[in-house]
C-alpha cells in the first residue's frame, strides 16, 4: 500500500522535483559555517511563535476589560496553559536575539554581497517586523508594565516631524493608550504582521534556495591555496539533522525556562494610576531608550530627541541599503566590519547602562 502511495502523490504533486532538488543541495563547511544555523533557528522560533500564538488565540480576549483576566485564565485554569504562554514569551525573546545574531553574522561574513542583496533587504525588513511583533505583543497581557512601556514607546513616535502626531494616533487608535490601542495592536500582531512576515519569509527562503549559502571572502581566498579549508556537506541528511539537533535542544531549553522562570502576570493596567518607577521597554529596545536618555535636550539648536530618532532612522535605512553602498573590496569590507563592530559595541554598551541604571 505504502509503495503505491508514493507514485500516486508523485503524479499529482511536484514531490519528485522538490526531493530531487533537496537531495542535490549542499552546504559549505568551513570554520565559520556554524553561523549558518542561526537563520534556521530564527525560522524555527518563528514557527514556535505561530504555533503557541495560535493556541493562545483560542482563549485570549483582546479587550481592556478582559485581556488580563483571560491571560490569568490561561495560566491558571487551562491545562498546560502556563507552558504555552511562557514558551510564547521566552521564544519571542530568543527569536529577537537569534535574528540579531543572524544579522550580525551575515554582516561580518559578508553574505550580503552580490547577488544576495535582496536576501539582505528582506532580512532586515524581517528583523524590523520581529521587533514590531515584540512591541505589539508586549501590550496584549494588559498589565501595568506593558501599559506604561507602550505609552512611553509610542510617545517617541511623536518626535517624527510632520507625521509624528498622526503616527501616534495611528499606533494608539486615539490620543492616549487605551482599550482601542489594545484592539489595534492585537490586529497588527495576529493578522497584519503575520501576513507581511509570511510573504517576506517566503521570499527570503526562496532567495536562499536560489543562491545557496554564501562563502566568506577569507575562506574563498584560502581555499585556492589549501582545499581542506572548506568542504561541502549534503543538505539532506547531514545539515538537516544538525539543524534538527539544534532545534530540539532549543525546544528543551524553552521548556526548562518556562518551568523554572515562568513569565509573570503582573498587576492589571490602570490607565489612571501614576506610572510606577523604572518603567522601561523590553531588553531589545533598551539600547534605543538609553541612547535617547543620554541625548542633550538640544543639539545645535535642534531638539535632541528628534536628532536621536532621526539618527536611528538613518541607521535603519543605512542597514537596509547596505549591500548597495558597500564596496566588495578588502577596504570596503573592512569598513563594513568596523561599522558592525561599532554598532554592536554601542548597542551592548547602551543596554548594559540601561540595565545597570534600573537595577533596584
Amino acid at each position, binding site marked *: 500500500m505504502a509503495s503505491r502511495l508514493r507514485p500516486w502523490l508523485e503524479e499529482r504533486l511536484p514531490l519528485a522535483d522538490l526531493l530531487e532538488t533537496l537531495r542535490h543541495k549542499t552546504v559549505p563547511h568551513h570554520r565559520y559555517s556554524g553561523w549558518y544555523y542561526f537563520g534556521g533557528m530564527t525560522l524555527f522560533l518563528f514557527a514556535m511563535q505561530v504555533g503557541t500564538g495560535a493556541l493562545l488565540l483560542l482563549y485570549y480576549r483582546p479587550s481592556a476589560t478582559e485581556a488580563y483576566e483571560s491571560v490569568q485564565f490561561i495560566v491558571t485554569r487551562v491545562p498546560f496553559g502556563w507552558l504555552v504562554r511562557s514558551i510564547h514569551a521566552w521564544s519571542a525573546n530568543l527569536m529577537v536575539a537569534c535574528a540579531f545574531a543572524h544579522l550580525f553574522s551575515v554582516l561580518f561574513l559578508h553574505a550580503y554581497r552580490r547577488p544576495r542583496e535582496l536576501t539582505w533587504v528582506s532580512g532586515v525588513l524581517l528583523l524590523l517586523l520581529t521587533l514590531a511583533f515584540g512591541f505589539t505583543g508586549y501590550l496584549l497581557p494588559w498589565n501595568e508594565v506593558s501599559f506604561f512601556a507602550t505609552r512611553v514607546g509610542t510617545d517617541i513616535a511623536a518626535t517624527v516631524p510632520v507625521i509624528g502626531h498622526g503616527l501616534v494616533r495611528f499606533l494608539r487608535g486615539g490620543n492616549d493608550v487605551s482599550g482601542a490601542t489594545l484592539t489595534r495592536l492585537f490586529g497588527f500582531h495576529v493578522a497584519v504582521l503575520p501576513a507581511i512576515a509570511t510573504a517576506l519569509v517566503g521570499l527570503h527562503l526562496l532567495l536562499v534556495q536560489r543562491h545557496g549559502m554564501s562563502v566568506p571572502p577569507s575562506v574563498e581566498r584560502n581555499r585556492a591555496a589549501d582545499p581542506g579549508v572548506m568542504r561541502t556537506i549534503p543538505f539532506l541528511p547531514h545539515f538537516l539533522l544538525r539543524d534538527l539537533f539544534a532545534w530540539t535542544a532549543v525546544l528543551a531549553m524553552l521548556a526548562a525556562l518556562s518551568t*523554572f522562570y515562568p513569565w509573570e502576570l503582573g498587576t492589571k493596567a490602570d490607565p489612571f494610576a501614576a506610572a510606577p518607577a523604572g518603567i522601561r521597554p523590553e531588553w531589545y529596545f533598551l539600547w534605543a531608550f538609553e541612547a535617547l536618555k543620554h541625548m542633550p535636550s538640544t543639539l545645535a539648536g535642534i531638539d535632541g530627541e528628534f536628532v536621536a530618532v532621526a539618527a536611528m532612522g538613518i541607521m535603519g535605512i543605512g542597514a537596509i541599503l547596505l549591500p548597495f553602498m558597500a564596496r566588495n573590496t578588502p577596504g570596503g569590507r573592512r569598513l563594513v566590519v568596523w561599522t558592525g563592530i561599532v554598532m554592536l559595541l554601542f548597542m551592548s554598551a547602551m543596554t548594559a547602562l540601561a540595565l545597570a541604571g534600573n537595577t533596584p
Partner: protein
Amino acid sequence: MRGTVRIAVAAIALSVFPATVRAQTAVETAKSAFGEDVHAAAGLTCAACHVSSRGAGALPIPSRTAIAPLCATCHSDAAYMRRFDPQVRVDQFLQYQTSVHGKRMAADDERVATCTDCHGVHGIKRVNDARSPVAPLNVTTTCGRCHGDPARMKLFGREATPPGDWSASVHAAALIKRGDTSAPTCIACHGSHGATPPGVTSVANVCAQCHVREAELFRVSPKKEIFDALGEPECLTCHRNHRIEPPQDTWVGVQEGSVCVECHDESGDSGMTIRRVREELDGLSAALSNADAVLTRAERAGMLVDDGRTAFQEAREYRVQSRVLVHAFALAPLLKVTTEGTASARRAQQVGEAAMLELQTRRRGLALATLVILAFLGTLWLKIRRLPPPSSQQPTQRAM
C-alpha cells in the same frame, strides 16, 4: 500752673488716645473676619449681636454669661430659623442648659465653655465647613484647648489627659489617618451642646450605635447583670474610654497580661471557658497564618492561587466574627464560627499546597521530557557521526 495743666491734659490724652486706637484695631479685625461669617451671608450686621442702648457706633461686648442666651434669641426660635434652613435644629440652647458647661455658666462660672468658645466669634462657619472649629476633623482640637490644658483643668480638679489619650486611640487613627469621618470624636460620646460625661449605665448605648453586634451579644450574656450589679461601665471595663486601643487576642485568657485576669482566675467554669475561648482564637489565627505562609510561597514561586486567596479572605472574615463573638462570653457560639473559619483556612492552605505540588509535578514532567529529548539528541548525534563522510568531489549546487 500752666505746665501742670498741660501735663495733665497730655496725660489724659495719652491714656485715652491709645485706648481708642486699640479699640479701632479690634473693630477692624472683627469686621474683616465677619466678612466670612455665615451670619453676614444671611444678611445680619454687627448690631444683631452687639445690642446697645446708646445708639449706633457703640459695640458693647456681651458678658460671657450673656452669650448663650443671646445666641438663643435666634437659634431657639423655630419660626425665625425656618427662614434660613427649614430643617435646622433649634434645641441647642436647651441642650446646653443640661450640659456641665451650661449648668456652671448658669451658676455664673465664666471659666467654662459657651457658644463662641467652640463656634468662633466673628468668622463663624457652618458645622460641615472644613474650616469650622467644630468640623469633625477639628472638634477634638477645639475641645482640647481647655480639656487638654492641665492648668485650666486643675482648677476644676480634673485631669487634662482625655484629648491626648483619644489621639492615641483606634478611633483617632481612623479619623485622622484614614479620613473616616464616621469615627467618634469627643462629641460622639459626650454630646456637643449637651456635653456631659456619659453615665456608667448609658455609655454602652453610645458604643452600641456603631458596635451593634457586640452590644447585642453583651446584653444577653451573663456579664450584663453582673456588671450592672457591680456598677461596671460595660464596654469600658475591658476597652477603657478615651485611649481605646485595637483589641488583641491576648486580652482573653487567665494568664498574666490578659484583661480577664483582672477579675477571673483559672478556677471554675468561667476559667475553663476563658481558656477554651482563647485556645479557639489562637487556633484560628494559627490556621490563618499557616495558610498565608504556603499561599505566599506559592505566589513567589510563580503560581497563581486566587481560589486560595478567596478562601483566605473568607477565613479572615470568620476571624473578625469570632472576635465579635467573644462578647457572648460563652463557648458554643464562638465554636461554630471558629470551626467554619478553620475550615476555610484549611481550604486556602490546601490550594497553596496543591500549587506547590503542581510546581513539583511540572518540574518532574520537565525532567521526563528533557530525558526523552536528551536521549533523542544523543541518538541523533550518533547518527550524525555515522553518516557517510561527504566526498569533496560532490557536484556543488549552483555557483557560490
